[in-house]
């Protein structure tokens, strides 16, 4: 039913010696009636096999847009990629013809969406939807793909998979649905899994399980995981490397342990301090004052300056150096990165 001209089957060949994912200078602009919104501004990202990269940031910081750009599912227009390269194993995905690009989706790079209920088609059973992948990419028959679907549901530990393969998405609980999304993402053994706020729509009790499952699937498959989140707790548990985004830019980048222990950008410091803690009961929860800038009108100088307790005149006038290198692979886009690392912001 899915043969003829439409689909070449099988994974696209890649050079395993090249870096898994190398994003350089990525910029995405949304053209709107009100003007151009710079959603992603010269972002660099790197991901190695077996690594977990967390992209951290508030709503509108450009983290989801970056992920969609990597995935190749931005709606263009209104979005437009104005600069940059996204290299997967040395091949630039952005210059690739759409037909070839499609073969990478699902097979090489897969995505777990935030809200599994809306990311699953309500008119098909979950078995049909997991099976769809095997039909599209592997040319399996309906019957074989159903078997595969049950296998995948078992793998993400959905109880009674064989009995539930014919159920519809709305018959599952939120956590189970997210497991199905994960099953779909890992079904074709991708090299990169992008999880876009995978736990945001879930109950707190289920969040940890889903993160554990994602981490486990990453270990099992040896793929790289890009975790997009604003939940610091989630990041602390699973991430190897953290990129903090603010107003479309990467403001800090480094190994998770170091960034947590010693943030180098005042914005990261603010994020850490706004996290509830078990000690210090009775204190008011810290909140970063002000709001992120409108992407239509990002202030000159440092975009965080208006909210920054450490800001000086230079911050309001000159944009910070895009990457002040601290020790090793740590970078921060702040005029005072070194001082922030050693003395904090107060």
């Amino acid at each position, binding site marked *: 039913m899915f043969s003829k001209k439409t689909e070449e089957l099988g994974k696209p060949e890649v050079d395993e010696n090249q870096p898994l994912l190398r994003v350089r200078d990525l910029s995405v602009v949304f053209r709107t009636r009100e003007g151009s919104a710079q959603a992603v501004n010269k972002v660099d990202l790197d991901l190695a096999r077996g690594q977990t990269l967390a992209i951290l940031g508030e709503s509108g910081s450009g983290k989801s847009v970056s992920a969609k750009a990597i995935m190749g*599912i931005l709606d263009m227009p209104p979005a437009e990629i104005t600069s940059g390269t996204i290299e997967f194993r040395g091949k630039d995905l952005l210059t690739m013809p759409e037909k070839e690009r499609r073969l990478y989706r699902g097979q090489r790079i897969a995505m777990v*969406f935030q809200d599994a209920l809306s990311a699953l088609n*309500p008119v098909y059973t979950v078995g049909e939807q997991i099976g*769809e992948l095997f039909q599209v990419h592997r040319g399996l028959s309906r019957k074989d793909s159903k078997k595969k679907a049950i296998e995948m549901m078992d793998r993400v530990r959905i109880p009674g998979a064989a009995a539930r393969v014919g*159920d519809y998405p709305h018959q599952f609980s939120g956590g189970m649905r997210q*497991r199905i*999304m994960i099953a779909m993402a890992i079904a074709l053994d991708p090299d990169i899994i992008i999880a876009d706020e995978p736990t945001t729509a879930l109950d707190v009790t*289920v969040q940890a399980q889903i993160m*554990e499952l994602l981490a486990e699937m990453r270990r099992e498959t040896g793929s790289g995981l890009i975790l997009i989140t604003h939940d610091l707790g989630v990041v602390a548990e699973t991430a190897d490397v953290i990129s903090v985004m603010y107003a479309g830019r990467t403001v800090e980048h480094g190994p998770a342990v170091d960034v947590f*222990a010693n943030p180098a950008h005042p914005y990261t410091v603010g994020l850490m301090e706004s996290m509830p803690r078990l000690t210090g009961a009775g204190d008011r929860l810290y909140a970063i004052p002000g709001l992120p800038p409108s992407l239509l009108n990002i202030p000159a100088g440092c975009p965080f300056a208006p909210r920054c307790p450490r800001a000086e005149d230079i911050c309001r006038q000159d944009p910070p150096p895009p990457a002040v290198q601290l020790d090793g692979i740590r970078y921060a886009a702040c005029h005072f990165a070194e001082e922030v690392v050693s003395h904090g912001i107060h």
Partner: protein
Amino acid sequence: MSEPDSVAALETIEGAPGTPTSSVTEAGKSRTLAGDAWETLRGSWVFWGSLVLIAIFLVMAAWPGLFAHADPRDCQAMRARQEPSGSAWFGYDVQGCDVYARTMYGARASIIVGSLSTLMAMIVGAGIGVYAGFYGGWVDILLSRVTDIFIGIPILLGSIIILSSIPTPPGSDFLNIAKVALAISVLSWPSTARVARSAVIQVKQSDFVAASRALGASQSWMIRKHIIPNAAAPVIVITTISLGGYIGAEATLSFLGIGLQPPVISWGIAINDAAPYIRSTPHMLLFPALFLSLTVLAFIALGDVVREALDPKTM
């Protein structure tokens, strides 16, 4: 800042209620959109009533002889305009034909014109709507403007122009019927196109379409597997409702004398023939008009209950 304490907080959540082993399989039968709609429809007397009426009219259209034993073309001037009686339940018309037989035989033309126009309007309208909605951009702008132009033409006026400019092929009832169906559908597809387009645009923005794209599906796969099944409900509804409207349009055109032409037997023609005598012998107009109204009503009522049943907000 040292090791964040929330990490410790997270550890305690492990093994909390809701782990896979403790989750319960939800009981109950599979509920799909169609299944849900069926549950709603099953208990609705409007649904069954309109369905029974439509079934009767369909049988009538297929085998009118089952209902009427008199020959509708057996007309004798001596019994013209006779009132209903035991031998002729609906009386006789101007030509002295049996009104009951002509009403039964008239269903065929109405049903065929209705279904044919609906089919053509649906194929053209849904096709254009899906195409415009899915591809957007220039394609959408162009197709939407074409749709607007067609919507701007009043259906009745447009059909009168079309019908009066194409000569009726003599000697073929079917070509006569097809011509009227064509005239109706050429001007009525835009409403289906608009509904289909907006449904597709709504579905296109769903996460599951993005998810399907993220999993490497092609555009034609997305349209067939994700867009059309999810956008079908409103198109089905407008199609059912407009079928009734098209039957009414056929009767209107035939009444005006430019739709179906004798010797085709149709309710519209019968109403036209009877109109001058409405004050003296209303039965000639009453019966075909009654059947026409019932048919239109049945389709519109069916479309209405189906719309209600398919509307996710009422589930």
